[in-house]
C-alpha cells in the first residue's frame, strides 16, 4: 500500500482532541464528534492517529466511523439540509415536500451540489412530530413546512 504522509494539521489537531478525551470511559464517539466538528468530516488521515491514541486497530476505528450515519467521509456543503422522512412527517405530506426539494436542488439524498452550496440528507425524526413536516437546516429546527417554505429554503441555501 502506498504510504502517504499525514497531513500535519490533521494529525496535530486530532492528537490534541484524543489527548483531551482519552481518559473518558468509552471516548471514541466523543473524539469522532470533535474531529468532525474541527474538519467538517472525519478525514481518513485522522483514523491512524485516533487508533494509536486509543490503542485500537485502524480497522476498528474505521468500523465505528462507517457504522454511524452522522460521520462524513467528505466535507458537507456550506449548508446542510436534513429533511425528516419518518412517519409523522409522512402523514403531513413529507414525501411530496421531499420530492419538491430534491427537484428544486437537483439533488438526491446524501448528495452535495457541485458548487458546494448545499448537502441534502434524510433524517428519521427530529422530535418535532407535532409540528410536522420538519427539517433541520445548519442545526436550526424548522417545523410546519409547506411548499412555499421549501421553495424559500431552496432559494436561500443556493444564494
Amino acid at each position, binding site marked *: 500500500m502506498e504510504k502517504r504522509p499525514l497531513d500535519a494539521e490533521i494529525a496535530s489537531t486530532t492528537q490534541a482532541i484524543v489527548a483531551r478525551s482519552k481518559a473518558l470511559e468509552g471516548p471514541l464517539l466523543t473524539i469522532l464528534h470533535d474531529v468532525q466538528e474541527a474538519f467538517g468530516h472525519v478525514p481518513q488521515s485522522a483514523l491512524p492517529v485516533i487508533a494509536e491514541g486509543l490503542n485500537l486497530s485502524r480497522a476498528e476505528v474505521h468500523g465505528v466511523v462507517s457504522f454511524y450515519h452522522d460521520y462524513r467521509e467528505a466535507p458537507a456543503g456550506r449548508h446542510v439540509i436534513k429533511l425528516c422522512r419518518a412517519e409523522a412527517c409522512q402523514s403531513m405530506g413529507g414525501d411530496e415536500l421531499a420530492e419538491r426539494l430534491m427537484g428544486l436542488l437537483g439533488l438526491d439524498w446524501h448528495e452535495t451540489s457541485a458548487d458546494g452550496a448545499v448537502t441534502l440528507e434524510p433524517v428519521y425524526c427530529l422530535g418535532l*412530530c*407535532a409540528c410536522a413536516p420538519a427539517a433541520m437546516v445548519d442545526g436550526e*429546527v424548522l417545523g410546519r413546512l409547506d411548499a412555499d417554505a421549501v421553495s424559500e429554503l431552496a432559494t436561500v441555501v443556493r444564494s
Partner: protein
Amino acid sequence: MSVKIYIPGDSGAVAVGADRLAAKLETELNKRDLDARIIRNGSRGLYWLEPMVEVETKSGRVAYGPVKPSDLDALLDAGLLEGAEHPLSLGLTEEIPFLKRQTRLTFARCGITDPLSLEDYRAQGGLAGLTNAVAMPPEAIVAQVTESGLRGRGGAGFPTGIKWKTVLEADGAQKYIVCNADEGDSGTFADRMIMEGDPFVVIEGMVIAGIATGATKGYVYLRSEYPHAINVMNRAVEIARENNILGTSVLGSPHGFDMEIRVGAGAYVCGEETALLESLEGRRGVVRAKPPLPAHKGFLGRPTVVNNVISLASVPIIMDKGADFYRDFGMGRSRGTIPVQIAGNVKHGGLFEAAFGMTLGELIDDIGGGTATGRPVKAVQVGGPLGAYFPRELFDTPFDYEAFAARDGLIGHAGIVVFDDTADMLKQARFAFEFCAVESCGKCTPCRIGSTRGVEVIDNIRDGIEPDKQVALMSDLCNTMKFGSLCALGGFTPYPVMSAFTHFPDDFRPASMSQAAE
C-alpha cells in the same frame, strides 16, 4: 416589579418561530420602555398553539397563541402585559381544556418554570424526592419504586423496581446508571421535551437510581438529532454539580454520584439497550445477545441500570408523594401516568399526560380533535416505527400495555401518529421494511436480509406480480423476522407491516385489481 412573559425555548416552539418572536418582543419592550422580563420556559406541549406566549397576571398565567412576530404590536397595544383580551387570547393557561384534562405528574413543571433555574425547580417541588431518598436505605428506595408499579417507559414496559433490585444485588465495585435518551421513534418527543423543559428532574431521577443501586456514575446517551436538549442537559449538569446535587456528597449526604452527557451519532438501533452500551463504549452499535443482562454485565461489563428518560423522570414524584399515590393512577398492570404524544396529521398535536386507561379513540378524536387536514382518520400508528397501525375499529382499545398487546399492537414510548384517508398503507408497510433495512445493526440474517427482501416483495405486490404468492411470502418473511431476530428492530417490524395488511387489505391489491373491484 417587572411583568413576567413566557416564551418557550423548546425546540418544537423554536421550529415554528419562538426565537424570532422573543427577539422581536425584547426590542418592542425596550422601544416602548415597558417593564417586563422574558423567560424562556419549556413547552406546555400544546404544539398547535406554539409559539404560545404567557403573561403572569394577578389571576394567573394568561396565554396567547399561536403568536407571530407581526402580531406583537397589536398585542402590546391591546394590553398584553395586563393579560388583556385579544383575538389570540386563550384565557388562563391552566383552563385550556387540553391542559386541564391532564394529570401532570412527570411533566408537572414542564412549561411552567425556567428550565435552568434551580430556584424555580425547588419552588415547584423539585428535590423533595431526592431529599427523602438520601435518608433511606437503598432497599427501601427500590421497594418504593417497585410498589409504585412504575414500568419502563422506553418501550418494553419492564418493571423499573425489579431492574434496580437486580443491580443493587449484583456484585461490583463500580456500577452505572445509563439514561436512554435516544428517542428515535417517530411520533415521540416526550424525552426531548422533559430534557429541554425540566432537565433537573431527569438528573434527580438518575441520582436517586444511583443511590438505590449503589451506582456512583451516570451517563445520558442523548441522540445527536436533539442539539437543544444536549445544550440544556449539559448546562443543567454543571448547575447541579455546583449545587451539590451531583458530586461526592449529594445534598450533603455520604452518597456520591456524578454524571456525563454523551452524544449519539445517528443510529436508531442504538436506542436498544445493549447496542446503546456498545456505542457508549465507543464501538459499532451492534446488539449484544442476552444473557448476560445489562443489570449484571452492562457498561464496561459492570452492573448497569439502563432506563428511559421518562422512567427516570417519574421517580422523583414517587419518592416525594409515595408509591401509593402514583400507583392509584392507571388501570390493570399499567400504573401511574403516561405522557402520550399525539402527532402527525392531527389538529391538536402535543403532549398529553394522563393516567393509563383512556381509549385510543378518546385520545385521537376528543383530545387530538381529529386530523389537521379535516379529512377522516384512516389509521394511527402507536409505538413508533415498530408499532402496529390501528384502524378506527380498534379505537376502543384502552391505553394499557396488556390491552394493546392483546390486539397485536404495542404502546412503546406512547407516541401516536395519525394518518388521514389519503394514506396508502402499502406504502407505509414498505417504509417499515425500508427503515428496518437502513437501521439494522446487521447482526442477524432475518433482519439484515429479510428487511431488504421485504421491500422487494411489497414492490411486487404493488406491481401486481403474482400478488397472492407475494402476500404469502410477505407473511412468511414476517414470521421469520418475528421469531428469528435477536432484537425488536427485526422482531417487531412485522407489526406495522402485518397490521397494515390485516386492517387495510384493499391497499394491498394491485391497482388494476382494486379498480376492477370498484
